[in-house]
């Protein structure tokens, strides 16, 4: 069942998806999402001049295209292998998700640049302006990318030698760890959504200081620094909304970290080496992620720092899923073993 080549290819694909998410973040961070107004071609060609914003946007398209090829190969490889049916299903889901991603990416561009697409979108959703639709597509695009990532992380796990060995070890790591990591995964996914919302509503600097918020523990929502004579006026309610989602992203980070670190401490205490190592790595990544989050604010959204923050966030999500699956698998195996012992006696 174990194939070294297949597993290595799955890991390569998963790593490439993390890279792709980082490249996607660089498009948003540099404001280059509309640098190429046409799709699927770029300025009518496959290779436009790679300058300025085109470098980021077309670069993202090239990396995404490569990722789609990798996932297609992975799916075909899985379907032709003797892997269990569920692993093959994950391969197909990843393939469908990556195709949807490409369409969403294209729509995100065309909903602004193509008047027909823009009119159709505003008519379908009965909105006066296309901006909420553009934002919804961008957030969905960012979220679906994480689902693609989760699929490739799972495939990497299921095709690994460690997974086979884990089955052979049959060690019960306890329901609590499995439950805690599942909760952490759900929380981390919400955090990814909040992060996408912060990025795509341009709320990254809505709270300009860290760790405090406007010099206080909780932002003064009733007394925010509001300029009624700003050149591009937003309503006070809009300002409150931006501050609220930014603050929620901060607070939620500590919730994710709290539950995840607790789960990881329990995992480190188990006798399963794989579990222990992954849990240690998880703690290291979450500490790094919180630091990167702080530096995002301190550097006023420096592109490299923001890109790393998004990429590390994606890696944490994928790793949490792996830890959660391993947790439940250990319980299942332990139950099977107990039943076997009982039936033998």
């Amino acid at each position, binding site marked *: 069942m174990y194939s070294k080549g297949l597993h290595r290819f799955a890991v390569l694909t998963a790593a490439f998806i993390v890279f792709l998410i980082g490249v996607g973040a660089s498009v948003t961070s540099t404001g280059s999402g509309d*640098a*190429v*107004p046409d799709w699927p071609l770029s300025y009518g060609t496959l290779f436009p*001049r790679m300058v*300025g914003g085109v470098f980021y946007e077309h670069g993202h398209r090239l990396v995404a295209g490569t990722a789609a090829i990798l996932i297609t190969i992975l799916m075909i490889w899985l379907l032709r292998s003797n892997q269990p049916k569920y692993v093959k299903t994950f391969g197909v889901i990843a393939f469908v998700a990556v195709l949807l991603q490409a369409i969403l990416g294209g729509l995100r561009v065309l909903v602004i*640049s193509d008047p027909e697409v823009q009119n159709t979108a505003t008519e379908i959703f009965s909105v006066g302006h296309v901006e909420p639709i553009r934002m919804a597509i961008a957030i969905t695009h960012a979220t679906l990318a994480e689902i693609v990532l989760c699929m490739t992380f799972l495939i990497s796990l299921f095709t690994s030698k460690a997974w086979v060995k884990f089955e052979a070890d049959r060690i019960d790591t306890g329901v609590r760890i499995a439950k805690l990591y599942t909760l952490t995964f759900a929380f981390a996914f919400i955090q990814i959504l909040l992060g996408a919302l912060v990025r795509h509503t341009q709320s990254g600097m809505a709270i300009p200081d860290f760790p405090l918020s406007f010099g206080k523990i909780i932002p003064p929502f009733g007394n925010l620094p509001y300029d009624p004579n700003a050149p591009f006026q937003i309503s006070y309610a809009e300002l409150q909304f931006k501050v609220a989602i930014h603050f929620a992203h901060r607070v939620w980070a500590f919730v994710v970290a709290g539950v995840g670190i607790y789960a990881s401490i329990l995992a480190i205490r188990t006798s399963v080496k794989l579990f222990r190592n992954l849990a240690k790595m998880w703690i290291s990544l979450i500490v790094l992620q919180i630091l990167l989050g702080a530096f995002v604010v301190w550097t006023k959204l420096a592109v490299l720092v923001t890109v790393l923050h998004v990429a590390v966030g994606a890696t944490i999500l994928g790793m949490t899923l792996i830890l959660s699956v391993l947790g439940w698998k250990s319980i299942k195996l332990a139950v099977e073993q107990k039943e076997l012992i009982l039936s033998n006696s």
Partner: protein
Amino acid sequence: MIKKSVSLLLLALVVSLSFGQNATLKGVVKFKGEAPKPRLISMKADRQCDAMHGGKPVEAEDVVVNQNGTLKWVFVYVKEGVKGKYNPPAEPVVLDQQGCWYHPHVFGIMVGQKLEVRNSDPLLHNIHAMPKKNKPFNIGQPVKGMKSYYTFTVPEVMVPFKCDVHPWMSAYAGVLDHPFFSVTGDKGEFEIKNLPPGTYTIEAWHAKLGTQVQTITVKAGETKTIEFTFERKK
């Protein structure tokens, strides 16, 4: 024939008399305090753009304090008080992309008036308008000499434009349903002609320094002078 000529003459007389009764609003936008050092923009991200400027950085136009202490690129317009309907001029407003730079940086345009966006550069640009009330658009102009046209349908102050290829390129359009607007230039002056007698709210808008308003009343034939003073935001 004679009848037609007389009618035209009378019409011209009525028009000139009515304009003669209108007022003119003029003034200057001053900058208080020490002028900020111009922000320097490197165009190294696109070698062709950089070469057009001899490899030297270009001064940003976000806050331009003139030599006489006045402020350039302030959009001054009648915000409230205009009555009646005004037809847009037939000639388009031109927004040119030259030297990887928008010309002009700030401009006014009427609802229904054509906006002509030109690419005078031998390289690709995209013109991305990001209005909140009008429909946004994003047009690619990969070839020199390309022209694209767009018309705004509702008043909106201001509509930002950017080139996503060259992120330093920015321009702003004030879209109005009347012709009473002006943009300050190298002397910080503005002039709004043919304003019917009445009371108006006048707003001065600057891309970085924000907005200021004044309420004025003008009488027939009067030339009113007002002044705005902006200072650096803390």
